[in-house]
């Protein structure tokens, strides 16, 4: 039998068994999108494989089933009838597979019955589409654009018709295959390789580890008894054990070329089907990979190559018009780099269509227009990894159902890898997959810190330096940071003990520095001792420990003990925020590690006097310098037009002079949609230091004094100035605005809060109407009751606050009503979600003043509008 066909049958049978199980689970839990995604993906893979192997009957069946499941995925109900139908289809596919296995060809026959039923089911559960299909053969149109995963009715019709003409199989190609199959089945190939489950290998590996452990114990015993007669046989046992260990490890490794085997044929078939000329280049096919990893990336790679061929590469004419050679190129390469296996898939096609991804991201509500505008191209391209995101305008048999890239990312995530995309419009697309050491076998340097041993992957170790006070290499201190003078460079150092939270560091002066390189960053890790290098099998960390960024895994050493593997990337991150103050987005993740150090980023500035003042940098939203002439005096207050709003300016003290010309430095603070700015004379520096207020202050607006970089510095209490700016501002506005009581719609399911908040709001001069549920509130609004503002609880049964805000926004009659969220949970995430749902503001449930401030602001905004 054809190798390809045999593999297909085995794999598909496995997949189908899973589909069976998953479908049944899905029927029980119709809301579990994850199961459905799994099923959909499996069927999609079957369909795809059938397509290139030339099995039209199977392909048509799988396609029809996939379409039906696409409807489920779009949220239409999965009736048991529909699931039964899909299961029946799977049984039919299995029957076909069985005869495929015996006869090496699809059996004669017709699956029209099932396909028609599947299509009828699709129409039935999608009623809007069904109305247009009754009794007509004319091209049908849908009054809305197709959603991802949907197929136009025309496509369905086409698939349906194509199934009728598939019966004559290609006799020319199958006949030789039959002949060779008879030879093969004689047992020749079977004797050369066998299929062994990974579990069996795992178990072997475990037993070998045990054997190594026992051998080491024996060696230890013999060492104590000189001239033991056991010595010679034990030596042999030892050698054999080592070889056995190596052998078992080898069984897990396979060249990546095994995963690429199918690709040339896929590309060839695709180029015929699509009328494109495609060259497939493969480099580094002998790069070895752990078998488990290989299995997981096989499908993603296939998907990506198909995508490149289908969407990436243009037709020969398009290419020539664009000044490129008519033949497109897809290049696959694999190599080891810095403890990772890197796989690249590059094509020289048209690249990603940034505008279309943008539009789609907005349409799918993944981001708002404003957000998208702020994103870089590279960030926009990342949207392609979001589930159900597909930009293919036309859904073809090849790809474009929105399964592609999210499957890829899912599989790669599973093995702890990462995927990146680089696209240059018109020049091509390049995917880089990085798979970390996990599951692989690596050489590691065993080091000691604080009495514990750790493994540092050898690949990132550049050199080892022994340091001694007064010796050739010595550790020097620059304030709190330590550096190593190595040849003519200063190498920043991180003390492993410190990073791991050890209370007292070991002897800092006399130790070892592991000079480590991560990307372009070189630094030293100070350890107490260095032992030896050892080949280790990386085992994933327990899920309870996986959050520790400093460790990438753990391993069992030859002597049987478990040690942690240091992740040099994690160390580099910890570095970024302690030693240097390069606060990159990624660096922020490592921040919690640094918290023990108790340093704070502070902005040092001068205002009103020569003494430095400081404020925690985290509190400041932005530093601005504005043209002093833009400062306006309005209503007796200094204001500046800032991002379309008037922003009040507050002076730290009377001594600060507003400049008349030139640039006026400002510290901008934002809280929700409000912004205010503190006027300062000069911004001096941003420093990292311990914030230890030593002398408290009675002076309002000053928390106290602290020593910052060796100088006594006043720490400013921002909390004092913020309300100062706003209360003041509101009072002035209020005098002119208070004419009729403003009406508030208060929605909270808890009578306790309704009763508590209503009087508070009434006391503040509002006319309050309370509703016990979102539905009740919507009814009031639809009856035509006018409100100036609505305040809603978030956590409510049936319809929550988010849904309420969306409903209000979605109805043109109420779209302009400001809605303020009231919640006991105020997390950045919730606020962000609230903003997306259309909340004007988000206030903590017990923050009475915040609520009234928010109310004032929003009722005034509507009044002004």
């Amino acid at each position, binding site marked *: 039998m054809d190798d390809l066909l045999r593999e297909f049958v085995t794999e598909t049978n496995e997949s189908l068994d899973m589909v069976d199980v998953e479908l049944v689970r899905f029927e029980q839990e119709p809301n579990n999108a994850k199961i459905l995604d799994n099923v959909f993906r499996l069927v999609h893979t079957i369909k795809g494989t059938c397509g290139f192997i030339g099995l039209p009957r199977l392909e048509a069946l799988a396609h029809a089933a996939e379409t039906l499941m696409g409807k489920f995925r779009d949220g239409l109900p999965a009736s048991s009838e529909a699931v039964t139908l899909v299961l029946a289809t799977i049984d039919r596919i299995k029957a076909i597979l069985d005869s495929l296995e015996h006869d090496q060809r699809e059996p004669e026959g017709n699956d029209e019955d099932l396909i028609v039923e599947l299509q009828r089911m699709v129409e039935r559960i999608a009623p809007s589409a069904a109305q247009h299909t009754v009794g007509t053969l004319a091209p049908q149109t849908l009054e809305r654009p197709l959603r991802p995963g949907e197929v136009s009715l025309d496509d369905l019709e086409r698939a349906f018709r194509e199934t009728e003409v598939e019966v004559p199989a290609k006799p020319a190609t199958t006949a030789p295959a039959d002949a060779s199959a008879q030879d093969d089945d004689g047992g020749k190939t079977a004797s050369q390789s066998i299929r062994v489950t990974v579990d069996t290998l795992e178990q072997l590996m*475990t037993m070998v580890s045990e054997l190594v452990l026992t051998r080491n114990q024996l060696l230890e015993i013999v060492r104590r008894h000189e001239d033991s007669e056991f010595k010679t046989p034990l030596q042999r046992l030892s050698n054999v054990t080592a070889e056995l260990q190596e052998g078992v490890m080898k069984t897990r490794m396979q060249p990546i070329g095994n995963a690429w085997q199918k690709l040339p044929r896929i590309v060839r078939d695709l180029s015929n089907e699509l009328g494109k000329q495609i060259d497939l280049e493969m480099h580094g096919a002998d790069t070895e990979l752990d078998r488990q990893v290989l299995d997981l990336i096989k499908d993603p790679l296939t998907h990506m190559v198909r995508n490149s061929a289908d969407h990436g590469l243009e037709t020969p004419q398009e290419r020539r018009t664009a000044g490129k050679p008519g033949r497109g190129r897809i290049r696959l390469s694999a190599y080891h780099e810095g403890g990772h296996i890197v796989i690249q898939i590059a094509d020289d096609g048209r690249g990603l269509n940034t505008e279309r991804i943008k539009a789609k991201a907005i349409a799918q509500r993944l981001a708002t227009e404003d957000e998208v505008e702020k994103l870089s191209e590279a960030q926009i391209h990342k949207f392609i990894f979001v589930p159900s995101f597909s930009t293919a305008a036309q859904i073809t048999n090849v790809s474009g159902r929105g399964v592609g890239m999210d499957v890829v990312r899912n599989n790669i995530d599973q093995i702890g890898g990462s995927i990146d995309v680089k696209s240059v419009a018109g020049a091509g697309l390049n995917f880089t997959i990085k798979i970390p050491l996990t599951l692989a076998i690596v050489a590691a340097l065993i080091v000691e810190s604080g009495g514990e041993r750790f493994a540092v992957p050898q690949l990132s170790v550049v050199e080892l330096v022994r340091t001694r006070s007064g010796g050739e290499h010595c550790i020097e201190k620059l304030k709190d940071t330590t550096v190593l003078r190595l040849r003519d460079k200063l190498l920043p150092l991180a003390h492993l003990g410190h990073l*791991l939270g050890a209370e007292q560091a070991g002897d800092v002066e006399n130790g070892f520095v592991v000079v480590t390189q991560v990307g372009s960053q070189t630094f030293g890790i100070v350890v107490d001792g260095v032992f030896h290098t050892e080949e280790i099998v990386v085992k994933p960390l327990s899920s309870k420990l996986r959050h*520790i960024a400093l460790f990438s895994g753990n391993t069992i050493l030859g002597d049987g*003990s*478990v040690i942690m593997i240091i992740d040099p990337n994690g160390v580099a991150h910890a570095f970024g925020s302690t030693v240097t103050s390069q606060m990159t987005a990624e660096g922020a993740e490592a921040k919690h590690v640094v918290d023990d150090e108790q340093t704070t980023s502070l902005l040092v500035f001068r205002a009103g006097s020569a003494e430095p003042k400081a404020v925690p940098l985290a509190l400041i939203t932005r530093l601005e310098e504005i043209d002093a002439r833009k400062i306006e005096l309005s209503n007796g207050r200094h204001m500046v037009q800032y991002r379309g709003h008037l922003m009040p300016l507050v002076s730290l003290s009377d001594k600060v002079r507003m400049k008349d010309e030139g640039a006026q430095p400002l510290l901008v603070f934002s809280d929700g949609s409000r912004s205010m700015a503190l006027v300062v004379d000069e911004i001096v520096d941003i420093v990292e230091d311990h914030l230890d207020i030593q002398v408290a202050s009675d002076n309002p607006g000053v928390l106290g004094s602290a020593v910052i970089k060796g100088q006594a510095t006043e720490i400013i209490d921002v909390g004092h100035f913020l309300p100062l700016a706003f209360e003041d501002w509101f009072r002035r506005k209020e005098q002119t605005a208070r004419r009729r009581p403003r009406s508030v719609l208060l929605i909270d399911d808890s009578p306790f809060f309704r009763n508590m908040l209503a009087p508070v709001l009434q006391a503040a001069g509002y006319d309050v109407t309370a509703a016990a549920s979102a539905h009740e509130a919507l009814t009031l609004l639809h009856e035509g009751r006018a409100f100036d503002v609505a305040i809603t609880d978030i956590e409510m049964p049936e319809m929550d606050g988010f849904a309420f805000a969306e409903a209000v926004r979605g109805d043109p009659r109420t779209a302009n009503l400001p809605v303020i969220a009231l919640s006991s949970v105020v997390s950045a995430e919730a606020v962000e979600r609230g903003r997306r749902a259309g909340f004007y503001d988000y206030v903590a449930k017990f923050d009475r003043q915040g609520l009234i401030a928010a109310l004032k602001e929003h009722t005034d905004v509507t009044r002004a509008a």
Partner: protein
Amino acid sequence: MSTENIQQNLKEYVTALIGGQLFGMPILRVQDVFFPERVTRVPLAPPEIAGVLNLRGRIVTLIDMRRCLGLERREDDLPPMAIGVELGAESYGLLIDSVGEVLKLDDGAREPNPINLDPRLARVCVGIHRLEWQLLMVVDVDRVLDIGDKAIAA
């Protein structure tokens, strides 16, 4: 509840002493009982995690039951024991003071936790059996293993 039901509701527990209190773990969840040796402490780990060790080629994460239950640290020098359990594909060891016997208890006689039970105990215990000589608290292994995650979230 009829007597027949009682007959059917017998459940088996492996008993363990932790800080003088008797606990019962459902026998179906218990893989093995072992003396933890060569435990590697994990820096930066949640406090409930006592360390990791190699048990016949598998890496086992040790959970300090005293820490979980809010009990005092152990003062005697007796070697601790661990009850091996599995969660998903991962192996865990629950550190206990000593292991007792296997008891068959009628689930119908299990009483709910008293309302004034220490919340740390109440979180992992799903009821109490009144034995002749003392009380046995039934431990829900999944809830015990949930604690590590909670510590991370906090």
